[in-house]
């Protein structure tokens, strides 16, 4: 009996030590620090989210998340190597260690979070299926679309969501089902259908990028209704919770900073703030960075170099960009949106 007890105790100690070991060791984080560079998997080019600009520099909302993580770890937002990945490649690249994290419009689902061996650390952008119509139709809400001709891609959840939505609202529609994205767009802009439906961010990008010459962006409206859930967020591998924490809290810090009105412009003045919450966030009251395993001024570095969530959203996809996507579900929780960060304390 004593032997069994001893063995059990030894086993328990080993397990505790083992878990404590992995929690502290952070082998991914150590590898990143040793390399001096964060390997961030982005997409191969989507306006507003990840895109090489005229100078060949990566910009976009997803790119800003990579930069925020780099700023938290190194105190320098530019220590990122961007690895452009296609939809087929992205999961293999993360599994095989070719990248440390993904920030490329990957939808958070149960199977991806579990069976693939990944952890989603948050939601960068709440996307969902929406509708776009020509302004001249005078439609203000998706509820007014009864009898409309709708352009949609076949064999996707988009098509099923569309049918469900119209049935639920006791409306009818005539689908125009086209396989290729370019052809769907051409059909919509040439007036073959009244409505084009796909993810709202993609609608906005299409409207900004593909409207043919005599028409302009102003001639099309994206209706406010969103009929499906597509939460897009950064992804890391199982195995290093500390690194996952840093990715998670880098994004939370951007949201939290927006909530407390800390921007890249005023962050230096905010360092003098007396507000205890702001002092904790910016590290003037130390402790938060140490708990996370990074420098205490990690949020200061993120906000100074990247900006808060609102700034990044505005600059890349919002009113400050040609995409002009409304905040909608991506507004802060205080303004009726879904962006909500747990407190930094």
């Amino acid at each position: 009996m004593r032997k069994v007890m001893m063995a059990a105790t030894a086993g328990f100690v080993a397990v505790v030590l083992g878990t404590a070991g992995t929690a502290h060791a952070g082998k991914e984080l150590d590898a990143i620090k040793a390399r001096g560079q964060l390997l961030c998997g982005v997409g191969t080019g989507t306006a507003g989210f990840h895109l090489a600009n005229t100078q060949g520099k990566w910009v976009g909302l997803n790119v800003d998340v990579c930069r925020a993580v780099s700023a938290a770890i190194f105190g320098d937002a530019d220590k990122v190597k961007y690895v452009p990945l296609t939809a087929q490649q992205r999961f293999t690249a993360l599994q095989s260690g070719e990248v440390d994290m993904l920030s490329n419009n990957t939808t958070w689902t149960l199977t991806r979070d579990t069976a693939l061996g990944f952890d989603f650390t948050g939601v960068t952008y709440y996307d969902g299926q929406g509708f776009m119509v020509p302004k001249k139709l005078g439609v203000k809400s998706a509820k007014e679309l009864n009898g409309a001709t709708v352009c949609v891609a076949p064999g996707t959840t988009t098509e099923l969501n569309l049918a469900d939505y119209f049935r639920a609202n006791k409306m009818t529609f005539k689908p125009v089902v086209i396989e290729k994205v370019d052809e769907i767009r051409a059909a919509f802009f040439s007036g073959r259908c009244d409505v084009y439906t796909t993810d709202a961010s993609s609608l906005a990008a299409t409207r900004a990028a593909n409207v043919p010459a005599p028409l302009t962006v102003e001639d099309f409206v994206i209706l406010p209704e969103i009929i499906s859930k597509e939460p897009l967020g950064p992804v890391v591998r199982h195995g290093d919770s500390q690194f996952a924490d840093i990715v998670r809290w880098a994004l939370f810090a951007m949201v939290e900073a927006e909530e407390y009105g800390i921007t890249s412009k005023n962050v230096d003045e905010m360092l003098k703030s007396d507000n205890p919450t702001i002092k904790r966030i910016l590290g003037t009251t130390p402790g938060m960075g140490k708990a996370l395993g990074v420098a205490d001024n990690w949020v200061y570095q993120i906000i100074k170099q990247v900006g808060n969530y609102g700034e990044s959203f505005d600059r890349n996809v919002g009113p400050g960009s040609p995409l002009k996507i409304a905040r909608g579900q991506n507004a802060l929780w205080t303004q009726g949106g879904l962006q909500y960060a747990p407190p930094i304390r």
Partner: protein
Amino acid sequence: MTDSLPTGERRQLAPPLIERGALGWMRRNLFSSWANGIITVVLVVFVGSILSSFLEWAVFTANVTAATGSECHGQGACWALIVEKYRLIFFGTFPYEQQWRPLVASITLLAMLVMTSDRRMWNWRLLVIWSVGSFITFLMMFGQIHIPLSLFLAIALLVGGVGMSLRKAIADAGEMNAYRTLAAIGLIGLALRIAGILPAWSLDIAPLSYVETGLWGGIPVTLILASYGLVFAFPYGILLALGRRSDLPLIRALCVGFIELIRGVPLISLLIMASVMLPLFLPSGVTFDKFLRAQVAIILFAGAYIAEVIRGGLQSLPKGQYEAAEALGFNYVQKTALIILPQALRVVIPPLINTFLGFFKDTSLVLIIGIFDFLNTANQALVDPNWAGFPAEIYMFAALIYFIFCYSVSRYSKHLEVELNRGTRH
């Protein structure tokens, strides 16, 4: 009969004006009958109207000075987009202030290709051109080159080994001894290096900042993938073609199997295999460079096709050539390298250049594995929301660049065909 013509000399009257020069050519070729005349007129009007509206769009109402895409809207072609984006299209995500480096690399690559096209260079000079050229190209692209000791040893072994078999019974004793020494140094050195006795020394040349392959893009990527794909695929394809005609059943089976396997799958699936499947088989953390993987996939693919082209050349040689070489007492290497291949390769040069053209364009498939070749960087320019809505301009520009490359290679191929057939023309 004073006006009779002198005998033996006929006065040559010029043909009537309407049969001569441009007018005559038009009458013979465009208006030889009523029906042809009508077709000519209709086609001229048709082509003219298309051309005039194209010129209206591309030249007369085009905008080359706009600062943003919105200023371009509602007019003709927006060439301002190309003016703004040409560096992104040509050099991709290479660090902006260092983009003279890919420029130098591209010019070096082009110079190498042009020099290679000159037949007077088709000897040891080719080796020098490609060694120096490759060194400059990759020094510019990477910024730093580290040549490990093992590479020097491997080269010594290779040169020694090839020299020993190729110059056997031809070279004098001194030359043979030199080859033997080289091969011995290479072999022993490599063995010691693998055993860990020789240190891991390497020659470091590092005048510039290091730029990894993930940042490469545009023209240099397309040129490197296509030219090095072919340069390495060529000897490899020769070996495959020879192996396929070998008398040893195992070698023959391996070569046939490989060629048929590669030719049986599309390049796109090979690229996906190299970029998606391969990393899963490797232990975690061990990753090959993505660019290198794509390059290897292209080499393997091109090798199989080149092997089949070369096999055509080998089969066209009469059996007497083989027998004559054997009668002279040549060994297999000498027979193949000195008698068979020079004749066989000459026959297949035009189809080889055709293969090269195909691969130059096929490299754009690497965009599906996220490598930014020329077409993919053009796509990047396309999705910028500030310059949205001008796909025609971007694709026409890309098509123009591809056309310039491919048309010049195709003209060269025609010139080469004439030159090579000069000896055999009857």
